[in-house]
Structures are given as C-alpha cells and as structure tokens.
C-alpha cells in the first residue's frame, strides 16, 4: 500500500484515491473537475450535507470509520487519502 506522503502525480493511481473519487462522483457537481488538490468544501459544489453523505458512502466502501475531528482536519482530497491511510494504520 502507498504511504500518505506520495506525490499528486502518483496519487491518481493509488487505490484509496481511486475509491475516494468513485464515492465522490455522485455527490459532487456534474462539471466539477476532481484532482488530488481539489478543496472538498469549495471546489466540488458540495455543501456540508453532501459531504456528510459522501463520508458515509466512503466509510462503507472502505469499511472504516472517519471520526468528526479527522474530517474537520481535511482540506483537499489528498489530505483525505492521507487521513484514510492513517486511520487504517490505527485500526
């Protein structure tokens, strides 16, 4: 498995990143361009409720729990991928 510090270029082939994008698609606005640098709160046309639903879907897909304070620390998709790896390590 990849480490959280991998570059943006490498990230796009990372399995967690691919899963995050897959789960994000139905919640993001149709014309949103998703990249590792996308800021979840402002770049993807998602309000706080859409983000909450996306996190539930991601938790189910990855079989892990993302506590609220971890979500609060996340800004970009790359941050989220890193947070997932840390949570998987801690589990």
């Amino acid at each position: 498995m990849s480490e959280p510090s991998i570059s943006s270029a490498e990230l796009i082939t990372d399995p967690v990143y691919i899963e995050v994008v897959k789960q994000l698609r139905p919640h993001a606005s149709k014309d949103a361009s998703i990249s590792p640098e996308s800021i979840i709160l402002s770049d993807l046309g998602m309000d706080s409720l859409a983000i909450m639903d996306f996190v539930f879907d991601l938790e189910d897909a990855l079989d892990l729990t993302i506590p609220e304070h971890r979500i609060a620390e996340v800004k970009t998709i790359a941050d989220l991928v890193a947070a997932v790896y840390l949570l998987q390590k801690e589990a």
Partner: protein
Amino acid sequence: MAIFDKFQPLSDVHDQLKSVGQSPSSLQFDEIISPTEAVLNGRRTILLGTNNYLGLTFDQTSIDKGIEALREQGTGTTGSRIANGSYDGHKALENELAEFYGMHDAILYSTGYMANLGAIGTLAGRGDYLLIDADSHASIHDACKLSDAEVIRFRHNDPVNLAKKLERLADKPGEKLIVIESIYSMLGDTSPLKEMIAVKNKYGASLLIDEAHSLGVMGATGRGLCELAGVEKDIDFVTGTFSKSIGTIGGFLVSNVPGLDIVRLASRPYMFTASLPPSVVATARQALSRVAGATVERTRLWDNATQLYAGLKNAGFDLGPQVSPIVAIRMQDPGKAVALWNGLLDAGVYTNLALPPATPSGWFLLRSSISAAHTSQQIALAVELCAKIGRELGLIPCPATVGASVEMMNVASPRKVAKQEAEKSSDEDETAVQA
C-alpha cells in the same frame, strides 16, 4: 466592520428573505392571545409552529403557581446552584421528575439546549466515544464540541450503520455513548428505538435519548417514546425540556445509573449558569404534575396531528414519513418554500420556515407543530390555506388531479396504530397503548 465579514453569506440569505417578504428571525407578535392564536402585524393569526403540544402556556393553575412563587421568592436566583445554593423548588422538581420517569436521579438545567450540552458534553470525556445520529439537533452537535470524546456520526435512524461503527470500536477501550432523539425536530420522524437498543446491548454501549418533543406527547402517561415502546429499563439517560409540552423553559437529565449526582460538579453548563428562577420552577412543577393525566389532551393532539397530516397529504404535498405532532412539507425550490411561508403568514397562519443546512437532505421545509389546544376548525383552515397557496405556487396539483389514494383513515397515527394492535392482541400490556 471587518469582524462581521465572515457572516456575509448569512446576511445575504437574511436580506434575500426580507426582500420577498418577512424574515423568520425578525417576526414580532403584537399580542399572544392563547396557546393557538396571536396578533401579528395587526392580524389575528393561528399559531401552528410553537411546539406547545399540550397547550399549557395559559394554564391558569400554572400561572397562579408562578405568580405565587414570584411574590414569595422574587424574580430570580442571580446565580448558579453551585455558587448560590438551591431553592426548595429546584430539588422538589428534580424529585418529581425522577418519580415521573421512574428513575433514581434527576438534574435540572436552565434550558433544554443546556441539558444536552451539560449531559452529553460531560458524560463522554477524553478516551470515550460519542456516537450521534446524522440528523441530530444543534444542541447535540454543540455538546460534542464541548466534550473531549471522539465523535462518530451514524446514518439517520440506521441501527445497521450504528452497529458497524460500534463493531469497529469493539476492541478499543473507553466508554461508548449513543445519542438519539425520540422525535426528530425537523421532519417529526421517530427513532427505531427497539432496534437501537438491541445494538446498544450487543456492544455494551450506553444510550442517551433526548425526549424533547415526546414528553407529554407519547406513552400512556406522557413519558415519551421510551414508554410507548416499553423499553424504559434499557435506557441509561434521558434529557428533555420544559419549553415544549411543559409550556415554560428549562431542561433536565434523568437516569438510573448510580452516582449521577457527580455530573453536577463536572458539568460546566450546570455550574456556570444561573439556575431557573422560582416562578419558572413553580410553573414547570404544576405543568409536569398534569402530564400523566393529560390523556384527553394527548388524544386531541394526535387527532389534530392526523387531521393536518392527512389533509396536507391528500392535497398532494410531500410530507415527512409519518404522522407526528411535527408535520413538515418538504420542498426543493427555495423560492416556493419562502413564498408558501409568506403566503400563509399573510393569510393568518404562522408556521416555521426551515432552510438547509439545518434540515435533513437539504430540503426546504415548512414545519408545523400541532397543539392539543388547536380546534379542528383551525386545522381545517390551515390545510385549506396551505392547499390554496400551494396550488397557486405549483407545489401541488389542482384538485381534479389529486389522487384519492391517501384517505384520512389510511394515515397511521402512532396512537391509533397502538390502539388497534392492542385490540388485536388481548394479552398485550395495556400500558403500551398510547392514551
């Protein structure tokens, strides 16, 4: 001023609301006539959004008790009970609450909001886990901010999702406190309590239920959803408020868990706020003493709720999932939601306008709360006006195209369902029947 710049988006919404009509945050009643009527902008208005479920705000015995306490003990306590000591009424009300719920101990708070802050924020500390429903009230979210516990959300009313979250915590040390509400305040839907308790018991967690909207409303003696579902022995903590059925202000935590008293010394919202004034305590005590016997009011409340729900459903509105004293029309178009709310105000009906993100799934809601004090004529008028304005706005079809698929008799009221089930099964415990 720059310090207010961060509120610009809020300010924009407020200005937008004011540009097309009234703003919910700046409404001011000229006069309150009764639990169900007020004068607003010079017009007599039906109050259909005040959570005054039993209609006790003008109860003469409560008013008399309040006046007596004001005269005998003054206007306020001027401090917290930790600093200024307790009045006899504080302890008496706690004893009466504990007795009412059949629990060992009760703690009073100055509002229902603070009861949740004080209970949830204190019971779960560092190293513990708070598992909260995704549609939780703001007081629960704010309590989580006050707590040092790790906060985990589960999908709304979803015991399977809750079980998954608890399963992942199974090997982790620390207490797990599940927080749910009996009736959720926006759509009026109830918690699947038996299923939630099965999950709690399986994983050895504790359960706190906020019965804010069900006190006086559900259960044979008005103790709420836990009484109606017959699961009170499985509940660890109950919070509630006096600002709805009890008709005044204040909040409480009750529990059978031994040693609850220590929470007073660890609960900042208990320690650092002035305690309830004697007049409020006196009116709360009087109203609480009436709740168990208020079967006629509960029957009227549920009949009114059923009438409103069925009337709006038949008119073609998209409503919350079940009959409840909270009836919400769900809309996707903000303009139409605001226009419906304003149209009703202009026609003499006050309801609540609820906007995202305070609403589930991003709906724009016209939220009504029903009182036992409403007359059938008031409900019928509210339905008629809603339907008329809803048709004008294109929210619902014209009468000819409305299907007759939902007749009033087909709309299930929990009270009536419980009664029917009890009649079917004669060996059922009669106390499970909603009065």
